[in-house]
């Protein structure tokens, strides 16, 4: 605690800089948090199953190299799954979803609204596709169309040859819920902490660069003689 005392004294002396930076940081972080929170709104998700139609299940029992083919089928399904993951998040699919939703006149369903609002993750052969939107109806409808795009209409995006080799089916219909704001809150917290650290750093740096005498100890250090009196 004794070692920190000089630094605390500096921060107390430079409090206007600290207060200004922290206030600005909280304002900017709060604005970004609000923006992220509002943008997320709702999230609708659907789950798909992907398989390789040339996998061992489709291969005749007489085949002697079944293990190798099993592994090959597993790898191929994973590869297709990853491919569909990437395709689902593309502009091409966003335009398709937007076009399919256009007759329904749902809000926030332009290609630019859909593009970037799709997130996808794969666990083995299951794909989890989610669409974020400020409106729950739009999010749900977009997730349903996305499911169709990646199943019955997948040939439009992955090509006919690959579509033929893959089996993709919706195993969990789209459902909608409030988008998780945990990341927004975490980001807000991290931004505030970083801002406080930045303020402390700048306060200390400002003080170190100040060429004027700051306190009694500073005067003693500079002159190398004791301070005999302090006048207020």
């Amino acid at each position, binding site marked *: 605690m004794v070692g920190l005392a000089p630094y605390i004294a500096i921060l107390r002396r430079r409090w206007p800089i600290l207060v200004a930076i922290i206030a600005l940081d909280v304002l900017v972080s709060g604005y970004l948090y609000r923006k992220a929170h509002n943008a997320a709104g709702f999230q609708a998700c659907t789950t798909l199953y992907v398989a390789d139609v040339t996998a061992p299940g489709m291969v005749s029992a007489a085949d002697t190299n079944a293990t190798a083919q099993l592994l090959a089928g597993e790898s191929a399904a994973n590869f297709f799954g990853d491919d569909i993951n990437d395709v689902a998040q593309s502009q091409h699919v966003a335009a398709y979803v937007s076009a399919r939703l256009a007759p329904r006149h749902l809000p926030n369903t332009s290609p630019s609204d859909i593009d970037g609002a799709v997130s996808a993750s794969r666990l083995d052969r299951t794909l989890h596709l989610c669409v974020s939107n400020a409106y729950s109806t739009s999010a749900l409808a977009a997730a349903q169309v996305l499911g169709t795009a990646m199943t019955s209409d997948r040939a439009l995006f992955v090509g006919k040859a690959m579509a033929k080799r893959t089996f993709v089916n919706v195993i969990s219909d789209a459902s909608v819920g409030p988008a998780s704001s945990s990341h927004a809150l975490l980001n807000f917290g991290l931004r505030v902490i970083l801002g406080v650290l930045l303020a402390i750093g700048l306060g200390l740096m400002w003080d170190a660069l100040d060429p*004027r*005498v700051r306190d009694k100890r500073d005067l003693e250090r500079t*002159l190398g003689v004791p301070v005999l009196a302090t006048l207020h």
Partner: protein
Amino acid sequence: MLLARLQILAPEARSVLLARAQPEGTVEPLAREVAAAAAQAGFAGRLARVPGSDDSRYGSAPSRLSGLPDAELTELQIDMKELRETERARAALHAGGGYTVVAGGSILDSPETLLLCRAVDVVVLVGYRAKTLRSDLEAARDAVERAGGRLAGAVFVD
């Protein structure tokens, strides 16, 4: 307190020069109080001014030390001829065996103040918070040492 600490640091000293490092400010009220404290302590307190150090140009005077009552002080005049001859200046400052406090100007701007450094027993530099540059303080300290003066301590004006 300033006089007491000075007495502990330099018990033999009978003359002290109070000077600044920067051009702004005045040390005369402080010098007057130290001289008054010396008078109260039983010395013949004397206040001297460095000729040519025109402090009245600057407004910021240090606060009073401890509210000491104004004492009867002898004001000593130092002329330029005495300043050029250190021994004569020293004799004038120590005449009568009293305690002489000299209100000086800026060490870096007033040659008279610098000349007095070697005539007085000790020099005390006054530093002002957020006004005095560290580089000026270091230059003033070096100037005092080069002039043959003895820098005994400092006063911090908050």
